[in-house]
């Protein structure tokens, strides 16, 4: 039974990680020579997400901002059409809709969360080893304009919901497409990214604390 639960939860966090621009941003950066996120740095930016789901006439569109605090966690705020805030930390994931907590998943209950965080951390320092165990990574282009294509190493594995991940960028990551096995697809575009060394705001710290308390 743990198979099902952990699979679904793995799916959530896997999608989350793959849809999350910042770590990939950093990884791409590492891959193409960009300096990865260091301790004490905060990466901020905006995103637009289109989710193409089978059976839906139109994609689910979301827009908002993200904040990655090195060593602290990730805050993913969808602003339109709803205020949905997702906070991830080594301790787990918390989601709020319109300010009310709707989901809380502890890493202790979802072991993949721990793996995810180690993956994120690895990505932040430009370490591909965690992803390389799961995906074949093909790089094209140069430091000015590049593309990475990640495909699962294990073919036809029903436990792997991802068919491919395509990441494009110039100096920073600009575009991520996650193609899922079921025919669904997520398309993320990033803009306004900035790497800061200022401390997170009290609001951000409060959100990160929520996820740490799990």
């Amino acid at each position: 039974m743990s198979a099902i639960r952990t699979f679904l939860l793995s799916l959530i966090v896997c999608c989350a990680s793959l849809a999350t621009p910042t770590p990939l941003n950093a990884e791409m950066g590492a891959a193409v020579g960009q300096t990865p996120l260091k301790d004490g740095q905060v990466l901020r930016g905006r995103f637009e997400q289109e989710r193409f789901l089978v059976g839906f006439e139109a994609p689910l569109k979301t827009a908002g901002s993200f904040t990655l605090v090195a060593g602290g966690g990730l805050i993913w705020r969808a602003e339109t059409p709803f205020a949905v805030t997702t906070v991830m930390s080594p301790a787990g994931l918390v989601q709020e809709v319109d300010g009310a907590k709707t989901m809380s998943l502890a890493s202790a209950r979802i072991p993949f969360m721990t793996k995810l965080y180690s993956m994120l951390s690895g990505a932040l320092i430009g370490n591909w080893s965690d992803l390389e165990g799961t995906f074949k990574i093909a790089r094209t282009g140069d430091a000015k304009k590049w593309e990475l294509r990640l495909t699962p190493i294990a073919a036809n594995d029903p436990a792997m919901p991802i068919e491919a991940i395509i990441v494009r960028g110039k100096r920073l990551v600009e575009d991520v497409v996650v193609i899922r096995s079921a025919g669904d697809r997520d398309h993320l575009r990033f803009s306004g990214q900035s790497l800061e060394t200022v401390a997170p705001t009290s609001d951000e710290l409060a959100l990160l604390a929520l996820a740490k308390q799990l």
Partner: protein
Amino acid sequence: MTLRRRAAIAWLAIVVAAACFLAWHFQRGLPLNTDLMALLPREGQESAAQKARDAVSQNLGRRILVLVGHPSRAQARAAASSLSDSLDATGLIEPDTASGAQAMLKLAQLYLPYRAGLLSDADRGLLEAGRGKEVAKRALGQAFGVGGTGESLIARGDPFLLLPSFLMQLPSPMPRAAWDEGLLSVSEAGKTWVLLVRSLAREPFALDVQERLNAAYSQSVATLKAAHPGVEVYRTGAVFFADAGARTALGEASTLGALELGGTILLILAVFRRLGPLLLNGLAGLIGAAMGLVSCLVLFGEVHVFALLFGTSLLGVVVDYGLHYCSTEFEPDAGTPNERLASIMPGLLLSLVTTLIGYVALTLAPLHGLLQIAIFSVFGLAAAFATVVLWFPILDSGRRTRAAGWVLRAASQPFDFWEAGRWRLMRQGLLCLGVAVALVGLARIETNDDVRGMQALAPDLVREQQAIFTATGANTSSEFVLIEGADDETALRRQEAIRPIVAELRAQGAIAGALFPADFIPSSGRQRENRRLVQRELDPLLAAHYAALGLSGARPAASPSNTEPLTLAQATDSGAFDFLRNLVLAPGVHTGLLQGLKRPDLVRDALSHVAGVRLVEPAAEISALFAKYRQRTVILIAVSAALMLIPFAFRYGGAGALWIMLPPVASIVLTPAILSLIGAPFNFFHAMALVLVLAIGVDYSVFCAESRDSSRATTMVAILLAATVTLLSFGLLVVSTAPAISSFGSGMLIGITLAFVLAPLSGRCRSPSAISSHPALDRSRQDRGQQPLPWVNAE
């Protein structure tokens, strides 16, 4: 041909047939059973609980967990796959059908049509409280937030994502492990651990299964460690513990057997100073052990390794008769072999009868292992007796030696001590000491029959098991919850009714988790209620919900058209729930597993008032049964002692019978008192030792009482030899690493020593044969018109 010759030939035929039977069995492989549970009582529990205990114990017993860890995920996975292949190649492992992905697909197919009846506790609580909008809001958050929980389900008839919520709350037997590309894995402290969960296709207590699996495991681990430096491998499972236990037991059996055999041979050679008695007694011992083994194989189809261990020790007891016969050659007026046999025949017969009373008492305890030991002993002793009586006079060359002076002096010391005037003060002092020891010891006596303390678990395996439990959270306890109802529906409803109690127990820290069939398949009643809740609380929100998702047009309702609830039978037939078959024992009889059980008392109390639900604690119940049978055994000993008085009263009179019984009874009273004084709590195995102390102690008493004044020294030689051999065989068990066997050994060591030292007290009563057992005296019996003693003139 005389009657005895015919009987001797018939006995030869039986022995030859038994030897052929044994040879045939040895050729096929001796069917040895190493299941420690087979020693345990099976009486006193209702059948459902017993059946549940057996089922849970079998399921847990066949399970094997292997944890492979390495800093490199790839190496950990490669090593785990290699080890898995090695184990599978033994052919002893069930095919692995529980791959996470395959199980997930089957489960999704099973659950999807019934999703409206499957609500998580949280969603159900919200809907009951009229807070359906919060459920809708969560679904929107998942759809528009980062990642998501299978949002494609929204378009497939689960707009509020109720099924993912239900799936996420399902309990797991391995709470900390997750499927990672087909392998259950845990990442911790910079290491990847891969957990292999397998089930044995055969019983874990068969020696060949243990040997083959362990050989494959050890070889594979050695190869892995060479190929993947830094790899760590841990294992747990009853098959590994049983293998270690069997190795220890067999190792001890061979070591103790060798010590006993060597000691016995040296002793006999030292006393008799020729080979004849050694060969005769060796023959009697061999035939006794062989017939004991044959009796077990015929009656049970197998031999328990414990019976074999005790049976090996029995060799030391069966030589008693032969030693007693051989010792008569030291008597100055000993006659022919037939006459010597006749002189001790009454004692031998009485000894056999009373000893058999003691062993038969063992059969009254409903312990399969002890029943085998009792059968082994009864047939072994009877066979040794027949060999001595029928063959010894024929095989005995009639050659005699004189006993060494030191032997006679040593052997006569106890008689001297109890009768010589110079020891009077010492005797009185010893008497006072004995009374004081008995009073103080018995007043302070403590009992402890906790079966968990009687198993000698290999420390390395315990450490490995703990490492696996810590890493994976797979700490399912042997205690479990038994739920009984008229049918499955009733049983499932009862599980749902105790869910708040279980949650409270988790909150209290009494348990870390629980796993019930109703967690996976709610009762039909609960599913119907859930569906009504969904219709009432969520269907009205549907239009707005779809609009928020940007979906238009006709859309399916949240409550699907399928109105039939999902049944247990469908679930078990689906193949998605292999483990469910283990939890559902019969219609209406289910079990719930507990994880990380820390406070069984709280769980027991919390469930005690719930109809049809109770905590089953196999170890505690078995311990309680051991305590009950310890008490019964003590009563049994008293009854046996009382029964023995009857034949003794006929032969020695009332007072004589009491003198006969004084030494063995004093021994069995003083033994627990001494154990108490040295701080050993009295347990069931001590009590079982007392059964033998009584039986053997009575032997010594009878031999002393039957001894004529002139032959006291030689009688005591026989008893000294017998006691020494018994101590070599049983007393040595005190050094066993298995606490149960060690307890038995300590009881025997103290009891037999006391029985030997006190035995001459019985000499204060005079038996008829003590007055007339010599051939010359028998002739005088005939002169007086009395019948000669049996066997004397059989030829």
